[in-house]
């Protein structure tokens, strides 16, 4: 097991390097000048030249790449062309917001998707199953930006039940930053008012972001459960006189968890990197909006930073999923 994990960590380095390499060379073939982007419309040619020289943009690509890799080896991701700050600082600022949103969306997907999937499987082909399947289809096919605007209009503008965009009411003071995850920081500071407000702000974007995942989870759970429920050991359990809920939740669900786990890993990765639209509409100061702003400003060091982080997150999550396999199913062994 340990050897397996070590080997996976080793290949992880290669995956991340490959992602970074690709991102760097894509950035080189884009037919636009980062200096032009940074200095704007009115800049004088001399200013542009000075900017390029100062940032090393006048050097040939391979030389820029070597310089980049050299500083990367010391853990230095470089400085953002746009914000002028070390990229590590920028990522530290923006990653927690995205992480918080993603986890919340994931929790939604699990809390709604699993029960819905189980119910649909148990009541196969009954109206309830049909309802879940229809909802799952609609949820999976609804564009995020449309759903986001609709939800905001309904729950915020029309009904006034939930707050609008942002992470916190403007009149509330954010707690001291410890993790950058607002709900956690509020909890640590014991600030219940902020915690409640932050949770209320989290509700809509998480629901919107999680809609697709909820649908997917529900469908995965349903089909996995259907397969398990028709197996002999379930019939045996029922024959022993165990109550239905116990059979379903204990015997069947555990066995149905494995395929669900597989899809969860890649879902979480996709959510982490795919929150761009949700973040823009909900003014959520996360990695998605940072990546978009960086990309349109041709801020390549920042784009590289985001790419590396995303690649790393994706690889780590998949590694965790593989490890969890063993926990759920002792029959699986890694040589």
């Amino acid at each position, binding site marked *: 097991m340990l050897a397996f994990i070590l080997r996976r960590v080793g290949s992880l380095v290669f995956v991340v390097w490959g992602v970074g390499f690709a991102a760097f060379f894509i950035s080189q073939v884009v037919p636009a000048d980062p200096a032009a982007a940074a200095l704007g419309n009115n800049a004088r040619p001399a200013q542009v030249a000075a900017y390029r020289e100062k940032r090393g943009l006048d050097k040939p690509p391979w030389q820029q790449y070597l310089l980049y890799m050299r500083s990367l080896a010391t853990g230095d991701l470089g400085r953002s062309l746009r914000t002028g700050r070390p990229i590590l600082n920028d990522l530290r600022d923006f990653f927690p917001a995205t992480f918080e949103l993603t986890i919340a969306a994931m929790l939604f997907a699990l*809390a709604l998707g699993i029960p819905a999937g189980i119910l649909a499987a148990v009541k196969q082909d009954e109206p309830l199953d049909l309802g879940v399947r229809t909802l799952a289809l609609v949820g999976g096919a609804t564009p995020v930006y449309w759903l986001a605007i609709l939800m905001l209009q309904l729950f915020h503008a029309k009904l006034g039940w939930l707050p609008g965009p942002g992470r916190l009411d403007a*009149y509330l003071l954010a707690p001291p930053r410890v993790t950058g995850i607002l709900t956690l920081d509020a909890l640590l500071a014991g600030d219940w008012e902020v915690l409640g407000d932050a*949770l209320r702000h989290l509700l809509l974007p998480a629901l919107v972001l999680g809609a697709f995942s909820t649908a997917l989870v529900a469908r995965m759970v349903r089909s996995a459960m259907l397969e398990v429920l028709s197996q002999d050991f379930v019939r045996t359990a029922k024959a022993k006189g165990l109550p239905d809920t116990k059979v379903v939740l204990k015997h069947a669900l555990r066995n149905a968890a494995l395929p669900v786990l597989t899809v969860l890993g890649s879902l979480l990765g996709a959510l982490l990197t795919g929150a761009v639209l949700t973040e823009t509409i909900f003014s959520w*100061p996360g990695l998605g909006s940072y990546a978009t*702003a960086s990309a349109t400003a041709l801020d390549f060091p920042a784009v590289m930073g985001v790419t590396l982080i995303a690649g790393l997150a994706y690889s780590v999550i998949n590694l965790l999923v593989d490890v969890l396999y063993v926990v759920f199913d002792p029959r699986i062994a890694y040589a």
Partner: protein
Amino acid sequence: MRLKQIATLAVALVVALSLAIGSAQSARQTTLVIGGDWTDLLTIDPGVSYEFSGTVIIDNIYERLVKFDGADLSKVVPGLAESWEIAERDGGGTSITFHLKDAKFSTGRTVKSSDVVFSFERAIQIGGPSSFLFTDVAGMEIGSTVALDDKTVRLDLPASINPSIVLNLLTFNIGGVMDQAEVEPNFQDGDYGQAWLNDHSAGSGPYMLERWDRSAQVVLVANPEYATPGSITRVILRYMQEANAQRTALESGEIDIAYDYTPEAFQAAESNANLKTYKTDTFQMTYLGLNSGPGAPFEDNRVRDAVRYAVDQQAIIDSLLLGLGRRMQTIIPAGLMGADSTIYYERDVEKAKSLLAEAGATGLTVEFLIPTGACGGGIPCADLAAKVQADLAEAGITANIKQTVASELYTIYRAQQAQIVLAAWSPDYPDPDGNATPLSNYDASSIAWRNVWNNPEAGRLATEGATTIDPAVRAEIYGQLTRLVATEGPYDMLYQPYKPIVTSAKVEGFVRSAGGDVELDRISKLP
């Protein structure tokens, strides 16, 4: 997880949520919340900042020697300097001597002339995006700013520089004065304190920086040392990229001022009694750049004239901008000295056709370069371009739209490679020279150069206008120049947009100047 645990968690969640409802009611009347798309905000350092968002914040934190009074940009009024005089220097050039008022930084220290010297020289040393205002436009260098005593500071200018232009540009962010004793110890790795100044402030203005949560909010609080504080003690600039989000937030009372409204939403707001609408001025001009170089499609001025006759300005303003813009056809916009509101070209498709025929350019096909996103006045560039394309087609010009991100567009435009480009221009400082030189002097390597339009007469007039001090003579020179460029230049000016801003009806005293200044301490909120 067991069902029971899940149920417990759910109950806890509901309790936490309901606790927050009805909270956060305190301090609303002295807090002002402004929603806007502040993504262009890169720095809160006055020596470096060059963005509109920066101006809103920095001008309320850092006082400049001189400023404009509200939206009136016709003359400078005292800021940190209570008076100043301009004198000829022996051996050529001029000097401006400023006498400082009694003022204190938010740090508690008194503002001294050495702080002015420090702030100006620091900006020159950093060489940020706005530093050319000091070095190129004002001809300043290290040593140009001299502290005569604690309260008197002299600025020496070379003979080629017009001191009234310098006074105008000192109103901008880069003229902001900071506390040397506070900033200097925070220099890191030769950054002149840039990093520190993004999370702290050291100015003498009505507000000071409390925190800047990147992409979330900027919070300003009243400077306790400021002599004449306003009623707003706390200002929060919230990042809201979506105009729709700003609209719902303003209507629900979550924010007090919305900075980005679409023309449609603005029209709706005009009839809403709970809101106030402002068509604030800008110096921005949205224009078509026409490549006039040898062998380029618009080398012949008759072809450029054909474009000017073909495009329907009024229809753009009426149907796309819904009135949020005004017609203009010259290079100096309304609000600046030398502005020329003459309409030289009314739409005339037949005239455009015959001009094209005369020039032998019938069936002309060109590439039309346009940026992504919104153009002046908040309308999608793609919509504006489609309208221009349709107008040109009526006259017989086929314009094939090529849409790219702004940075790529600039790269092409800067290399003189655009044929027709949809672009915008704002002067770097509120003076006619901020437009005249870049838009008409080929040798300035700016916009006239990008469109390969080399007209020595225009260049001469621009230089003369820049160096003439007598306002009446200057106005006369700019009159000649604007006429020349309007009828022969490489542009088809489309419109001068307004910046639509909507506030709650409770907000009083909101004024935004065309340069982007908003004096936050003059704003108050009704209960």
